[in-house]
């Protein structure tokens, strides 16, 4: 196959290029074409899987587009008005931000702590790394279902244990109140993702040269001084990546809440994406409104990520 496709450039070149000198236009065009061909798979990939869907979502957000009947024509800005006046619009944004703040702080601190813990070469290093990383191998939906069983009073092993320990007489309702539902979900997320962020930060930690630490030790730096002066600054690229992943992932939280709480109790755990889902499939069956909300979320995410990048860049300077 390669022998068939390779010859043309070779045979073309001598015909138009008698000797050394500036590359003629046709050759440049061929090289340009070649460049385009190399870029084509990626361009197609991005075009079909990102740009086209985004354009479609923009089109839907400006149309009266129902789940069952499809497009019923333009209606800008009705969808945006309906979505922003939805009774859960503000509360879902506030809840999503609250959840993002809690999850990000916990995951970053815990991820870094665990990375520092397993970085040192001890006898238990491999065991600890594996044990902490194992939950990351589980799909989020599977992990959520597992925790649903753990939290459900009918199957939970926690309540018998708590009763046996004498902590409580009645059973604890892990998902029964708004704050219990939030923290129970956060517990699941921390369990599921701490290992992942540990790994991410561990890679960064191991890229810091040992000489720098050696020099600090010779200079008599304390552990805290070393951590603040060397580890944190040199770990910044990894922290930035972890932070962006964590914030974006948390702002788009859906699976865990959908499985554990379905937005309840009393609509207290409706995230923005859950609201998008509700608009599209649960009752409203209105894809236009769901798309309008998606556009708002997309805009917010671009803004937040841009701010994060800008903040991290300015710190670098």
């Amino acid at each position, binding site marked *: 196959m390669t022998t068939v496709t390779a010859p043309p450039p070779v045979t073309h070149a001598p015909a138009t290029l008698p000797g050394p000198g500036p590359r003629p236009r046709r050759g440049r065009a061929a090289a340009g074409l070649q460049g385009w061909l190399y870029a084509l798979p990626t361009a197609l990939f991005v075009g079909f899987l990102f740009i086209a869907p985004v354009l479609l979502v923009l089109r839907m957000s400006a149309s009266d587009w129902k*789940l069952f009947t499809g497009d019923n024509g333009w209606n800008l800005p009705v969808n945006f008005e309906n979505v922003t006046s939805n009774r859960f619009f503000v509360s879902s944004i506030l809840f999503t931000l609250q959840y993002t703040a809690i999850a990000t702080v916990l995951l970053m601190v815990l991820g870094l702590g665990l990375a520092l813990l397993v970085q040192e070469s001890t006898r238990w290093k491999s065991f600890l790394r594996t044990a902490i990383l194992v939950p990351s191998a589980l799909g989020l939906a599977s992990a959520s279902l597992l925790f649903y069983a753990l939290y459900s009073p009918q199957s939970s092993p926690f309540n018998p244990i708590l009763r046996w320990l004498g902590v409580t007489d009645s059973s604890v309702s892990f998902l029964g109140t708004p704050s219990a539902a939030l923290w129970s979900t956060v517990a699941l997320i921390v369990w599921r993702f701490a290992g992942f962020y540990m790994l991410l930060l561990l890679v960064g930690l191991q890229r810091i040269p040992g000489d720098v630490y050696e020099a600090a030790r010779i200079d008599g730096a304390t552990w805290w001084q070393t951590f603040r002066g060397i580890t944190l600054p040199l770990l910044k690229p990894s922290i930035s990546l972890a932070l962006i992943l964590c914030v974006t992932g948390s702002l788009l939280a859906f699976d865990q809440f959908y499985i554990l709480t379905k937005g309840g*109790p009393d609509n207290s755990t409706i995230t923005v994406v859950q609201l998008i889902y509700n608009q599209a499939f*649960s009752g409203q069956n209105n894809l236009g409104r769901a798309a309008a909300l998606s556009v708002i979320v997309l805009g917010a995410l671009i803004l937040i990520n841009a701010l994060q990048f800008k903040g991290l860049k300015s710190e670098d300077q």
Partner: protein
Amino acid sequence: MKVWKRRRIAGAVAAVIATSMTLAACGGSTGGAAGSTSAPATAGSSGASGSASGGAGAAADQGVDDGTTLTLWTRAPLEKQAKALVEAYNGSHQNQVELTVVPNDDYVAKVGAAAGSGQLPDLFGADIVYVPNWASQGLYADLTDRIAGLPYADTLNKGHIDAGTVDGQKFVLPFVLDLSVMMYNKTLYSEAGLDPEKGPATLAEFADQATKIAALKKPGVSGTYFGGNCGGCLVFTWFPMVWASGEEVMNADGTESLLGGSAAQQVYSTYKTLNDDGVIGDGARDETGATWVAGFQSGNVGVMPYPATLLATASESVDVGVSALPGVDGGGSTFVGGDGLGISKDSKSGEQAWNFLAWLTSDAAQVDVLAKGGDVVSRSDLANNEYAAKDPRLVLINEIAGKGKTPVALNFQSAFNASDSPWLTLVRNAVYGGDSSVEADNTAITSVLAQQ
């Protein structure tokens, strides 16, 4: 559409010719196989395996059975019944139905996506409360004439047929009926000194009996249980208590909520008292419906409104007693739920799909598959069938099927079933809240129901 119309005309002409041949067979079938009509009855019920004349009869009255592969979607709660029906049909017909069972929570999204892209399967079921909406949005093909042509059309479950009727056109047939009934654990009743042969006849008796079971203080055992965070479960189990009390839950058009009525208030306050007294099992408050039947099935709940389709499953582990869902002062009713089944707008095999639908309502499917499997039949003339007769509980369930209702509202899903529905807010405020906000919450339901 043109092909569909031509086929319908051809089908109608053939139906006239064939009606005289098949009417005798259907008339004779209720009386059993004996008598001079037994031969055609057998040919009619077995479908494809009949003689040349039998085949023509089947083609005329019951669509076409020519070995076409049909696709059918249903949701997971009806998997057992759907599988049994499809297996029986495939075993006796040339047409073959490919069944796809979709998780309950994903079903609306899957149907919606397929409807938008014109890729609905030949046949698909819908939770009967969604049927009015889906039918009015044009997802189903019109079956008015075909249903009218069924010799037993008048006996088909009225609730399902009404829910599938939009502007006088009929779109679905009952696929599987799911009724809500009161189920109680006879063993626990005996232990609590209650009569194990007598379920609660009034709302107060229900509360009293549940309280006595809870008073046993057996570890893990509760008096009753319910889906406190599951709008669909609450509709299914509480609406009948209002109906049994002689009141309505909505106006006839399904545009106004009447759930602030006195009977409804009695239901809420009964559950509030049961909750305050610790009679309701742990976890009911955050029960989203995923495990709402589990406690009873494992023998840990005394008495609770329960789906009749799960009687056979529950009976494997519990000695189950059954009674109708009572009203405030007695009476009995049920929510005739389950799924309707229709031919999709996208089906290219309408004749063949009708063959399945016609068979679905035949004696062969209703008695030999559904009743045999312990399920409710959707034809009132078959209520006292040989299988039901063996189990008085099934006789009772079949009887109350006629007394029950299927609420019809275009916005049923957003008003009641959705996780953020105002109905769920009403119930949670009434049972778990401090102040009564029933009237305001009832108005919120009305505003959703009235949306165009």
